[in-house]
């Protein structure tokens, strides 16, 4: 499990997504330098559309269905001008002889194409050709605010014999179109205990979408009695979805204390949306709730209305069992630390958590204090390098790199050496691999020359050493020897960069571009021809190529033309041309 967590953590760190709203143990090498890959563009053959239109015009239901579905899918992928298929699709939708499967596919294609001009036809067929079509079409008609359907929905609310799904379609539709005239009927459905729970809740949600006032009494009636069911209370919260009045707040405040977490969470969410001050008195208790969404609302209130005391309460949730919630607390505290009156409270609270024994708290406090560049935490970070939790030992290594306290260099070097021995003994641990990578970045950035030999051990291919540690070592060597032409090192690096892609075992892409970047930092003029040769005639939209471009610019000052976006051709359609575009 821990392995999975670490792997996901690493994979989520994309080269092109370096903006860090969320504090995470990212790698410095990924943003130094910034190598921006041009966004790929999707390419399509111009011959596809005529082919699909010709198939769509055929009488066979199979071809109509497949063509319509393909057009819908291709439109989603970005194939241009497929709206030209709308007349044919309309014809299929409206023809009496059309088979149901073809009609469904054609109707769906019109919806995907956002062919609002077909709304009237879609409305007609949805009322004539069965429940499946109604389920497909009516939500779209609501989105398009197609007014003629409102009377149909109103009739359904009135009619006793209305079928369940059609009733729900009407409820959702009237809610989506904010038809105020439907409120009395929707309210009666909400209050009708003979209706199913789903119907009542849907009706309440629709009323809540329509009305922003005057439903306080209804919500009160639904929720105030001792015998009010969970559905009653959920309906009451839903009714007040857009209310801000004092009576509404009173009902919501009562429901926010509900023992049922789904009710409490919904009420707290609404109260937070009205005014965080309303939740503040409840927040501390909410943060002790078993239910993560309830705790989250408490966090939001304290984060929005912080005081030094509330910061201390918030910091306790750095050890929350729910990873997203403790991450949210960490990021909220980071933002709060920017306020002068709260900075010390945040640092103190985080330091307290860091000193604790709970691994979740240790991890989050490390990330927080690392991001805050809280140098007094460095000794504790060194201690935590020894944690048996992967998340903590990785965060500690990252934190030491962020703090860059030179006094920690011996400890960092010692740990990196120790972990290298572990890796070479086939420890095969992703956690160690990632920790070593962060430590190497720290050693490189702080130019700790005694580590030079250790880092050089990572240059040759070795199946025991992983992609991250090797690339970080090479990147670190670049920083360590920046501006100092070290010819033997440059030769080793250029060999890593230019090794044949066919070589087995293959060389990691990350190692290649780290080598290119470090060659640039070394100002390895002698290696420019080999780099140019490997680059080829033009810069490709891949990270290795962009790294070489950057390095050549660093060494020679020459800025090669940037890479053109990669064209991705989508294939695998049911009907394709044998010919290429002219």
């Amino acid at each position, binding site marked *: *499990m821990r392995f*999975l*967590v670490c792997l*996901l953590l690493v994979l989520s760190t994309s080269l092109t997504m370096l903006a860090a709203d969320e504090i995470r143990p990212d790698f410095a090498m990924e943003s130094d330098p910034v190598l921006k890959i041009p966004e790929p563009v999707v390419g399509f053959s111009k011959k596809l559309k005529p082919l699909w239109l*010709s198939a769509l015009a055929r009488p*066979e*239901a*199979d*071809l109509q*269905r497949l063509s319509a*579905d393909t057009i819908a*899918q291709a439109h989603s992928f970005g194939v241009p001008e497929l709206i030209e298929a709308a007349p044919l699709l309309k014809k299929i939708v409206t023809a009496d002889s059309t088979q*149901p*499967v*073809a009609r*469904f*596919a054609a109707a*769906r294609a019109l919806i995907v194409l956002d062919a609002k001009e077909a709304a009237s036809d879609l409305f007609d067929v949805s009322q004539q*050709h*069965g*429940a*499946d079509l109604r*389920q*497909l079409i009516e939500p779209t008609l609501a989105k398009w605010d197609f007014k003629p359907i409102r009377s149909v929905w109103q009739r359904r609310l009135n009619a006793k*014999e209305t*079928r*369940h*799904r059609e009733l*729900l379609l009407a409820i959702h539709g009237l809610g989506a179109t904010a038809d105020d005239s439907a409120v009395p009927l929707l309210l009666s459905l909400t209050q009708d205990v*003979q209706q*199913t*729970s*789903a119907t009542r*809740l*849907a009706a309440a949600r629709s009323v809540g979408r329509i009305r922003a006032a005057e439903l306080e009494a209804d919500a009160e009636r639904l929720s105030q*009695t*001792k*015998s*009010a069911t*969970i*559905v*009653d209370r*959920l309906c009451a919260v839903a009714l007040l979805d857009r209310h801000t009045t004092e009576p509404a707040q009173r009902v919501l405040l009562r429901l926010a204390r509900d023992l*049922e*977490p*789904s009710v409490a*969470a*919904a009420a707290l969410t609404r109260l937070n949306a009205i005014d965080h001050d309303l939740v503040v008195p409840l927040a501390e208790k909410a943060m002790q709730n*078993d*239910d*993560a*969404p309830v705790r989250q609302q408490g966090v939001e209130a304290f984060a929005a209305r912080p005081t030094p005391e509330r910061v201390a309460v918030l910091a306790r949730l750095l050890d929350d*069992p*729910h990873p*997203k919630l403790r991450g949210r607390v960490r990021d909220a505290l980071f933002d709060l630390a920017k306020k002068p009156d709260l900075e010390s409270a945040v640092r103190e609270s985080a330091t307290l958590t860091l000193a604790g024994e709970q691994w979740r708290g240790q991890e989050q406090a490390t990330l927080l204090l690392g991001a805050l560049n809280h140098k007094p935490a460095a000794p504790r970070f060194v201690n935590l390098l020894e944690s048996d939790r992967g998340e903590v030992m990785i965060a500690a290594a990252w934190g030491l790199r962020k703090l860059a306290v030179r006094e920690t260099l011996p400890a960092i070097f010692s740990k990196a050496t120790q972990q290298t021995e572990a890796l070479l003994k086939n420890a095969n641990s992703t956690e160690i691999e990632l920790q070593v990578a962060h430590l190497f970045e720290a050693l490189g950035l702080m130019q700790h020359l005694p580590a030079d030999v250790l880092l050089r051990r990572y240059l040759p291919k070795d199946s025991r050493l992983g992609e991250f540690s090797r690339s970080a070592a090479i990147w670190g060597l670049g920083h360590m020897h920046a501006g100092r032409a070290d010819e033997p090192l440059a030769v080793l690096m250029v060999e890593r960069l230019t090794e044949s892609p066919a070589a087995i075992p293959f060389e990691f892409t990350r190692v290649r571009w780290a080598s290119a970047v470090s060659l640039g930092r070394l100002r390895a003029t002698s290696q420019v021809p080999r780099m140019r040769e490997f680059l080829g005639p033009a810069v490709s939209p891949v990270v290795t190529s962009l790294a070489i471009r950057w390095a050549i610019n660093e060494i020679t000052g020459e800025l090669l033309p940037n890479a053109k976006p990669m064209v991705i051709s989508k294939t695998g359609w*049911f*009907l*394709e*041309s*044998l010919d290429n575009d002219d």
Partner: protein
Amino acid sequence: MSFRRQFVRRNWFWPRVAIYAICGWLLLAGHVESEEIKGRVGYSIAMVSPYGVDAYVPNKWGSLNVQLVNPTREPLELLSTTYFEEEPTLQFGRRVWIPARSRMETWHPILMPNIAADAKRFNLRSLVMDAQKAREVLIRSDSGYLQLDAVLRRAEALPVTALIDSLEESPTAESEAAYELVVASRLQSNLNQQVKLLSDRMLPTGEESLQAIDQLVIADSRIVDDGAGLSAIRRWLYGGGRVWVMLNRVDPLVLERLLGDEFSGEVVDRTGLTTVRMESSSASGGERWSQEYEQPVDFVRMVISEVDVAYSIDGWPAAFWKNCGEGRLLVTTLGPQGWMRRRAASETSAPDQGKYALLAPLQDLIPALFMPRPGPLLSEEMLEPQMREYVGYSIPSRWLVGSLLIGLCVLLAVFGFCLWRAHRLELMGMIGPGLGLSVSLALVLAGQHQRSAVPASVTSLQFVQAVPGTDDIRAQGVVGLFAPEAGTANLAGERGGWLMPEMTGLKGTTRRMVWTDLGTWHWENLLETAGLRSATLQQSGTTSERIEARATFGPTGVVGRLHGAAGHAPSDVVLATRDGRIGVNIHNDLTFVAPTDSVFTAEQYLSAGLLTDEQIRRRRTLLQLLTNPQRRDYPGSAQLLFWSDPWDLGFRFSESSQSFGATLVAVPVQWERPPLGTEVAISAPLLPYRATKGPDGEIPSALWDAKQHTWQEKAAPSATWLRFQIPSVLLPLQVQRARLTIQVAGPVGKLEIAAYREPDVVTLKTWIDPVGTLELDITDPGFLNVSADGGLLLRVSGGDSDRPELTDADLKLEEKRSFWQIEVLTLDLHGKTAAYPKPE
């Protein structure tokens, strides 16, 4: 018009078969060699590969992907046809139009042949022809081949489980978890790890395309966009499939589209649980489990009605079942990680154990998911004899036969007399046989004339089931194809499904079932012999008007209206449940009444007193349907059963064929609550009961077996509390009076009925040595308390402990032990609908 059943094969049947076989060969393959060069278009013309569920099981339908290429500058119509090495004369094909200079992917159903038990693959061979030419012309591929050989792997182990998962190229941890959970579930059921991943974006249409699979797990929402695929799944589910929807990964829209009006749920919110506290909802008392997780487990909190919640978390359903026709749907709202745990290294000594082990709650659920598919409600063997009763032709009349025989006798007498007078009686040795032969010949000729005078006919016996909550119907049945002369049969389908003739005697003839569009197919070169050939049919489709029966309760019984059957003239209507049947009076406007005084006896299946021939056949079919020992679960809910003329299911036959037969239609009853204060009468078939623990703590005995629906024979005194279930649509209900009817056989000695009136159990009636049908009217509502969920308790006890000699044998005298048994026990109720309790 009706015909008598009789059929005699002609002596020259086999020569005729041979002639048609030769003709068929000439038609389907004979021209190939001479025309192949003309047909060459110089390209790799086709490729066949697995499609759809990619599960192939002998004698079941599968789907075949066909990729065809048109390299010419003009549109082409191509025919791709495929046959198996094991059955080379039975072909399945697809005829399709392809634009110029293009490549098209299409597919068609294919019926897998029977292969050896140890065979692991089906070897198939495909041919491609130019379908525009009058004569069939094979097209040669670029590499010079006229035929394409391919292999389909046989499903390794049954049952087959398929998974609809995300099509993302990089699998997420969640999608891997879904897969691992399905694998662990199979392993738990002592099956192999093989799970079929449905990787096509769109599923094949038609229920038959899913025939090879037994369980379908839905862990991705993409089928919402595939209307035809979703319809196929729905029909397959209602036909007996097992579907598992992982709602933590699936949009509830999937359930809405799958179940239509039968789905009544709304998501409240979605959350992640780091502590899972699960509770069983079993009647025997909820067991509890608690588990901590570092990574939160997805959980969907939803409100849902009309389902059987199996497990819940903090009161919210975590897993629930829903009966869908003959199939079952399992929905889990908790993420996969909440149902399994990773095996410790010490546990994985055996490689086939898998990485994960199921936690106790899913171990409990899985057996029902992996249960074998239920057998058909009405099998081919049940229907065929009755179908044959519709088929036949008139034989020469008695008058003609009698006249000929009398004439023969007269002639023999006259000749005998004359020859006797002429003393040439020895000539009778020649004349007698000659006359006999002449009369025989005359009879044969008359018989032949009679048979050839009967036109070709198609008789069918169909069983149509409306899929509740949707506009769908499912039909199965048998068809009899009667031909007076041999020839080629015209058989086609326009609305999907299939009609598969019995192929005895046709192995030497090449036959081909060709699809020309979705659900549109025809048979080519299907030999038709003189006489009757049976065929099985299956079809599912959508009706323009939903077929449904909406009913409620009134003072005289059930009243309602049948919708969507206006064109079918329903007759012999019956309201059937597992607990009995009620005769239904239906009016011209399709309103109906099932009065309480029309409850059938155990042997009664139709209202009519004196049954016609047709009604006798209908009665027999109903008897087989409702007492099928393999399907004691049917009907799971109240069904309105009615008869009509054969429905047009889109199958087409020779234009000259006449049509006969009947259709039995089963429509699930949709109950509606009567207005407040309505007097209602509930008859016994609508009041199912089960043995239960009594309010006095008495444990139920094995007197009543609710599963088998039988009362057990007893030699000793025995008693049990019975819980009668009042239809939920009537709740809350004020019960005013009840009538209990009971029949006992054997020396029970004493029979006693009791009820509970807090705080005592009160005996209502005691019979000593009861005989015949006993009735007990309970008029004191105090004894008829109904629980909030509609349960009404009565206690029945039999046997007399003071007189053990009634049943106990005196072994010394070698007497046999005697048994008593309750044969019938029913309850009829009268009451009034009450108001819901008002909030305090």
